[in-house]
């Protein structure tokens, strides 16, 4: 397969070139956050306080890695199911978040926010945590260390293998794929 290379921070010109179904290699920095971290993001926003990192042009990875063995940057680090974060995603996208990485379908509200604010939903291959860990070159906890595997961690990544699932044009790899191969 042809592979496109993209870099964080994600700018709009790069986003406009991405189409559902394409494979990309992502390099730069991404932030892990899953269920409990998202809950805290909202509590923070509702209090009028600043989030642990500026969402603008950044990418969130729905991931709770396994512990890093001695001498390693990270343990296995595949995606978790994104749908559980659907309730939170549109507000974060409206704050400038440009990408989310996970697995599984998104709600219509999330897909609408991707079109409205120009952001991308990427799929990382679920259950390929050892493969994905190879692309992680650095790891630093930036917030909520008490949440253990659910802490917010800034990951430096090089050539993280992803697929574009939802682009800014309303295309959805899950819907297109099923339509093409349903018998």
């Amino acid at each position, binding site marked *: *397969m042809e592979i496109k290379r993209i870099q964080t921070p994600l700018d709009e010109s790069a986003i406009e070139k991405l189409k559902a*179904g394409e*494979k990309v290699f992502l390099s730069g920095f991404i932030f892990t956050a899953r*269920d*409990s971290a998202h809950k805290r993001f909202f509590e923070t926003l509702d209090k009028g306080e600043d989030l642990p990192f500026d969402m603008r042009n950044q990418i969130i990875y729905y*991931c*709770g*890695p*396994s*512990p*890093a*063995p001695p001498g390693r940057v990270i*343990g*296995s*680090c*595949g995606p*978790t*199911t994104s*749908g559980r974060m659907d309730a939170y995603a549109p507000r974060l996208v409206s704050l400038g978040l440009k990408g989310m990485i996970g*697995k*599984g*379908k998104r709600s219509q509200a999330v897909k609408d926010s991707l079109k409205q604010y120009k952001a991308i939903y990427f*799929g990382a*291959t*679920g*259950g*390929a*945590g*050892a*493969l*994905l*860990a*190879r692309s992680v070159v650095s790891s630093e906890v930036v917030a909520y260390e008490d949440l*253990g*595997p659910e802490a917010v961690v800034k990951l430096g990544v090089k050539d993280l*293998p992803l*697929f574009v*699932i939802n682009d800014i044009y309303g295309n959805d*790899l*899950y819907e*297109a*794929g*099923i*339509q*093409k*191969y*349903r*018998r």
Partner: protein
Amino acid sequence: MREVHTDSIISAVEGLFIDANINLSQNVFDALDQAIEKEESPVGKEVIRELINNANIAKAEHMPICQDTGLAVTFVEVGQDVHVVGGALTEAIAEGVRRAYKNGYLRKSCCDPFSRKNTGDNTPPIIHTHIVPGDRIKIVALPKGGGSENYGEVRMLVPSQGKEGVKSFVLDMVTKGGPNPCPPIIVGVGIGGNFETSALLSKEALMAPIGQRNPDPATAAFEMEILDAINKTGIGPQGYGGTVTALDVHIKMLPCHIASLPAAVNIQCHAHRIKEIVI
């Protein structure tokens, strides 16, 4: 009566869960190899290549295949001529799990249902015990991730729904899950018994190797019929579209009440981690 000390149970369980989480069995490797041949979608093929690559990296680098190293499900067959000494059998299994998840750098994914506070050591394990003839203890470790487990269900069908009812129930669950349980999946189907045994049968069904058919020819044919229907849904590897949505379907069946047709579906992801030992 043969005596088995809990120390040997603890170390066996520790070893099983580390081994299962890191070393994908040859049976699943072979199934993925065959899946690449069968898959028609180029994206689907690419996903399966990533999965094989991942399992090879996990083995070589001693890393968990998936970061979701699961709840620690164990099936234990206790020979009725065995006397466990040194402590309680269930506590020995829990201690083995505790050590595996700590020493193997496996993720602890067990928490309180409402406060969501992590128990910290991946205990308590899920333990299913059967008393069997003989003087051995067989332990099967089946660490099971949350993504696939979330698409399981028990339905008390009415007898008139019959085979068609069971088949459409299975297809309903597979379609509902779509990409979320990490296809290509393995589907365990429990039919008959009562409410709780149908659920247990569906999980036990997952223990059959991929490619092994039910010994009853009619049930074996029904497994293939459901597998074929699942692979026509178009969901494909990771749900990106394709012709390999499931690697296999396994059915376990028991007689049931004249008024009932209990059926249960338990879905397993492609990272089908299972190891066993006999002590």
